[in-house]
């Protein structure tokens, strides 16, 4: 975990037009969030006794976790497989994962009826090993801590040798600096344990998210209920890791006025067809084995969603990633990446509240304005915090000319 000389704090103005729009979205979303906290879930959401889970679980939580998979997949590549070439993507991906999971937690606080009990699953007296959700919850809690630990070297690097407190506090400069150095050395020595743990924990909870709805065999649409669902969730999360990194990296380059880092992204994109291929093969194999393909043409909303998220937003980007021309062009690569990123998001949303068909539903669930607003607000807040952190800490690769 050494070769980070190439990362540097971003040297750009913070308050741009984009940032102002994000702030506006954040305030709107948090307004709805506050309203929900005061008047209850029913005042903001379209959730009912028939549809207990909606946009906030399907998107903020389930998609949030899936799209943070860039963190463990890039750590796997750079640290476990030692592909040093990719070190430049590890820090941004780590930051995205760290913030992503943090916001999964924040989003969950708005969705939980008794949010102040969110820590209950950590109490041994309430452990419930049969519950899929318990496992997801525990793994996510531990994994967030691992991610924060992995971020430590970035903080120490920022401040080591630069501790410069004013006035009387300057007496503390030396000891603080020494402490930082100790933390840096120690965390560097044991970091490999955390990196491995991060990958293990990710595999566990990414797949268990897919086990959640397996408990509703009589409610789920047959296109979306399979005992292999945990594997679908795991492999689609692994597959979306690099597209998500590519998507973010190109956006970051654009918004910070730099050239896209194609010398890293192009080779990185080469892994995607394999990973995505595994997912697609599993999914199609399962469909043939279970005979669920008979539902493909039934014309229900679930079958249309399947065509949309699997056909258009999974298989098509897969074919695009196969082409070396796509991989070499920033524009095409970005298109393919964003298609699959959205594909995963739509897949998760479909599983949690479209394929879920309660037997006595009065009307289908569609998210309310307030649910959209909070989700968008949280994503905006995440982007603002991301921008603030890359301005302060050495996360993004330093611009070419400085190297």
């Amino acid at each position, binding site marked *: 975990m050494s070769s980070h000389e190439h990362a540097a704090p971003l040297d750009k103005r913070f308050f741009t037009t984009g940032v102002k729009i994000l702030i506006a979205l954040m305030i709107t979303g948090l307004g709805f969030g506050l309203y929900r906290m005061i008047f209850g879930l029913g005042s903001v959401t379209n959730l009912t*006794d028939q549809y*207990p889970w909606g946009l906030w679980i399907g998107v903020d939580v389930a998609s949030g976790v899936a799209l943070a998979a860039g963190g463990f997949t890039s750590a796997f590549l750079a640290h476990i497989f030692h592909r040093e070439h990719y070190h430049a993507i590890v820090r941004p991906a780590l930051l995205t994962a760290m913030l992503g999971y943090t916001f999964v937690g924040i989003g969950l606080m708005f969705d939980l009826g008794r949010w102040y*009990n969110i820590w209950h699953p950590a109490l041994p007296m309430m452990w419930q090993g049969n*519950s899929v959700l318990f496992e997801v919850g*525990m793994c996510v809690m531990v994994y967030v801590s691992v991610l924060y630990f992995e971020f430590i070297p970035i903080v120490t690097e920022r401040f080591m040798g630069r501790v410069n407190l004013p006035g009387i506090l300057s007496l503390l400069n030396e000891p603080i600096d020494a402490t930082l150095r100790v933390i840096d050395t120690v965390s560097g020595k044991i970091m490999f344990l955390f990196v491995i743990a991060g990958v293990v924990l990710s595999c566990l909870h990414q797949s268990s998210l897919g086990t959640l709805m397996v408990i509703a*065999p009589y409610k789920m649409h047959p296109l979306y209920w399979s005992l292999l669902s945990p594997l679908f969730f795991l492999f689609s999360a692994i597959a979306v890791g690099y597209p998500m990194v590519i998507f973010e990296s190109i956006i970051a380059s654009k918004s910070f006025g730099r050239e896209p880092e194609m010398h890293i992204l192009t080779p990185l994109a080469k892994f995607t067809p394999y990973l995505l291929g595994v997912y697609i093969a599993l999914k199609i194999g399962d469909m043939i084995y279970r005979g669920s393909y008979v539902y493909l043409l039934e014309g229900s909303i679930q079958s249309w969603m399947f065509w949309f998220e699997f056909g258009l937003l999974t298989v098509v980007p897969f074919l695009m990633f196969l082409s070396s021309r796509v991989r070499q062009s920033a524009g095409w690569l970005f298109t393919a990446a964003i298609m699959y990123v959205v594909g995963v998001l739509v897949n998760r949303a479909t599983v949690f509240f479209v394929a879920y068909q309660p037997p006595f539903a009065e009307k289908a669930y569609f998210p309310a304005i307030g649910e959209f607003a909070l989700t968008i607000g949280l994503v905006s807040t995440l982007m603002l915090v991301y921008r603030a952190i890359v301005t302060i800490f050495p996360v993004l690769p330093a611009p070419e000319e400085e190297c």
Partner: protein
Amino acid sequence: MGIDRRDFLKRLAGIGGVALLGKGAEAYAGQPLGGFPDHLGVLVDTTLCVGCRSCEKACNEINQDLPRRPQESFQDMSVFEGRRRMSAGSYTVVNRYPDPKDSERPFYSKFQCMHCLDPGCVSACIVGALTKDPSGAVRYDAWKCIGCRYCMAACPFQVPAYEYHNALTPQVRKCTFCFEARTSKGEMPACVEACPMEVMTFGKRRELITIAKSRIKKYPDRYVRHIYGEHEVGGTGWLYLSGLPFEDIDFPKLGNTSVPSYTEPIQHAIFKHWIPPLTWFGVLGLLMWFMKPVENKTEPRSDEEGPEK
């Protein structure tokens, strides 16, 4: 169907504590789940029901924490024009279903939590706020609950309701089997007692099945030949007899496999004595070690594609 999963052990142990519990727990855990030998239940003979709603009223009265409703509201028979479901304010509802053979005399059916033998809600609950009492009741402890509503997604009968408009202390709401006030003391649930037509019989589930079978045998024209709840989702504490096919009186068509028997084996396989996660950890560790570059070779293998100029 003999379901002998080692539920109690797992429930007690949580993840990883299995070894600590030792042999005694193993022995208890070996008991088949279907073998709550004294599981209490209620047999509902819907052919006897006249739709007076006394059971709904009794339920509302005994559950002190439900919103109190005026007596007269339970005499309003216009509710039968629509179909109702249980809600955060009512643990049981009666619905009306026309009899195609006799338009004068419709059927009625009361519905509430089925108190499943292997309940989806209990298996799903992240903190063990829902528990299965050996006497049969599926109980809820609001103090533990975090309000995730996974229990609602897991219930095959779509029973638990939620207090969506309570901002601070919302609860999951479902029939309690009058556990605290009555059935734990051996008394029958309030609705059973209130019914003027003796639609419901309270007793040991095993005996109720015998009664149900003999009724079907004695009056084959009166009933469809099916005891709903005997096998559905692994068996339920509440059992139903009907004169109409059960699908026509809003009973979901379910298989005989309990819903936790789909998820729990997956869960337990992944965490079997922590072996799979630790193995994965070890494999990755070895990989990390062996992949360590010997010389300082930093070029990626897949870089034959340069970025386009």
